Structures are given as structure tokens and as C-alpha cells.
């Protein structure tokens, strides 16, 4: 069974309050110079052979449901 990773991140121009909160907490803990933006990682297990068509289906699923392309970008890759 192949595993496909979908990373979803807020677009650079969109405010990321969660990332800002994490960044602030890191600073208070003494981790300096670390700026965080927070996204989501989806691990998608694909039954059967991972053909180009199947991979395209995962991209379609990412575009339709996993990401909201108004505010988020996504990246689809096969886990080696």
C-alpha cells in the first residue's frame, strides 16, 4: 500500500494566529530567532497500485476537501 503525504499550509499573506502563538511561546522558552507557521499534514494510504491517475485523485481530494484554496496552499508527494 502506498502512502501519499498532503501538506496544507496557510498562504503567506494570510494571518496565522496559531503560528504566531507558537512563535511567542518559543520566545518565552528561550528559543530565539524561530518563527513558526502552522499547517496540517495528512497521511493518505492508497489501496492498490499508485498510478498517475490515483495520484491525481489524491490531488483532487486535496483541492476539494483537505485544503481551502481561498486561504491555503497544498503540496502532494509520495512517501518513499
Amino acid at each position: 500500500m502506498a502512502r501519499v503525504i498532503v501538506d496544507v499550509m496557510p498562504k503567506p499573506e494570510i494571518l496565522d494566529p496559531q503560528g504566531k502563538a507558537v512563535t511567542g511561546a518559543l520566545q518565552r522558552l528561550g528559543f530565539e530567532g524561530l518563527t513558526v507557521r502552522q499547517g496540517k499534514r495528512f497521511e493518505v494510504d492508497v489501496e492498490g497500485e499508485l498510478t498517475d491517475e490515483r495520484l491525481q485523485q489524491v490531488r483532487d481530494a486535496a483541492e476539494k476537501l483537505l485544503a481551502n484554496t481561498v486561504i491555503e496552499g497544498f503540496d502532494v508527494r509520495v512517501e518513499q
Partner: protein
Amino acid sequence: MSRIGVVTFPGSLDDHDAQRAVRLAGHEPVPLWHAHESLQGVQAVILPGGFSYGDYLRCGAIARFSPIMTEVIQAAGEGLPVLGICNGFQVLCESHLLPGALIRNDVRTFVCRDQRLRVESIDTVWTCEFEQGQEIVIVLKNGEGGFVADPDTIARLEGENRVVFRYLDDNPNGSLNDIAGVTNDRGNVVGLMPHPEHNMEELTSPSLDGRTFFASVERYLAAVVG
């Protein structure tokens, strides 16, 4: 008396308050279940506030694909009045019935207060009984109410008079241009973060401005039918 549907998703919170508001406004509330595929001939639909599907993935993202939403999206395209309140607004954005998206409040806290708003457009089914520029008070309570869209979309909304409500005083959540509510190009679909269903009675509300939403849709429906 009109039949106004109120959709209940798993995790809806204010569906009963919305039904009650419909009743107080003199209409017949029709409960609509998310898993059903019929709007039961209602003349308008309210998508209520709450946390549909636990806000999993994104607020409104999973509710948008429930069977009843297929019907709502089609009917909205044919002109059915649809009002999305808070989580309902998020569902409408996820459905692309309204542009933009709602993200986590910039203040990073849940905000709950009586919110002053200005009515920016009375050219909608849900606001035609307000006066242009009227200042109203509606309950606001949300954690993810920051309205965002790309600059072209914001410019188009402003240029086409599709910003329906704007926050007055402090912007509670970082919404671009202080936008509290928007409409589609036809004016039959309106979404807003504040909760007009909570502003129906003196006992529990600082204002009765929620009633005007229902007076508006009543006027619209009377004009259409009459």
C-alpha cells in the same frame, strides 16, 4: 406566515434558538436534518451557529458536503433566501455560495459580546427592512470569525455593494475592512458572524434588531408571491 427551514448538523448549537426566532417572528420553523435530501418546500433556509462536525478539518468544511447542502446550494442558485449565521456563514463560504473564508480571530481568543454593526447594504433579501447605514447591536460570539479574501475579491465586494454589515468600534476578530457579513451577487444569500436569532426579545437582548432580518425576508417573500 412563511415556512422557514433551519438546518441541524451534528454539532449545531443554535438551531433551536433559530427555530424559536422564526416562531417569534410569526413564521413556521421547519427543522431540516443534515442527512436528508429534501428542503420540504420551505421558502427560506437558515444555517445556524455552532460547531458542525466538531469544526473538524476546518469550520464548515465537512458540513458543506452533507446531503442537505447539495439541495441548499442548488436552491440558492435559483434564488431561495439563505441566511448563514456564524458557523452557517462558514458553511456558506466553504460551499462557495459566498466568497472568502473565516479564519481564527487575530486576538486568538473567543470573543463574546454585544456588537455594534452598521448595515451597509439593504439590497438583500435579509436586510431590505433596515435603513441604509443603520447602526444596530447584535450578539457576537466566535473563535474563528476573521473574514479574509484576496484583494481583488475584497475590492469586488466593496465595489458591488456586497458588504452587508461592518463592525463598529473595535474590530473583534481581524476581519478585513471590518467586514461582519457579505452577500452573493443576487442578494438572496447572506452570511454574517453575529447572531441575530439572539436579538429577538427584551428579556435576553440589548436590542431587538434581529427581528428586522425576519421582517426583511417576509417583505421579500410577500413581494415574490404577491
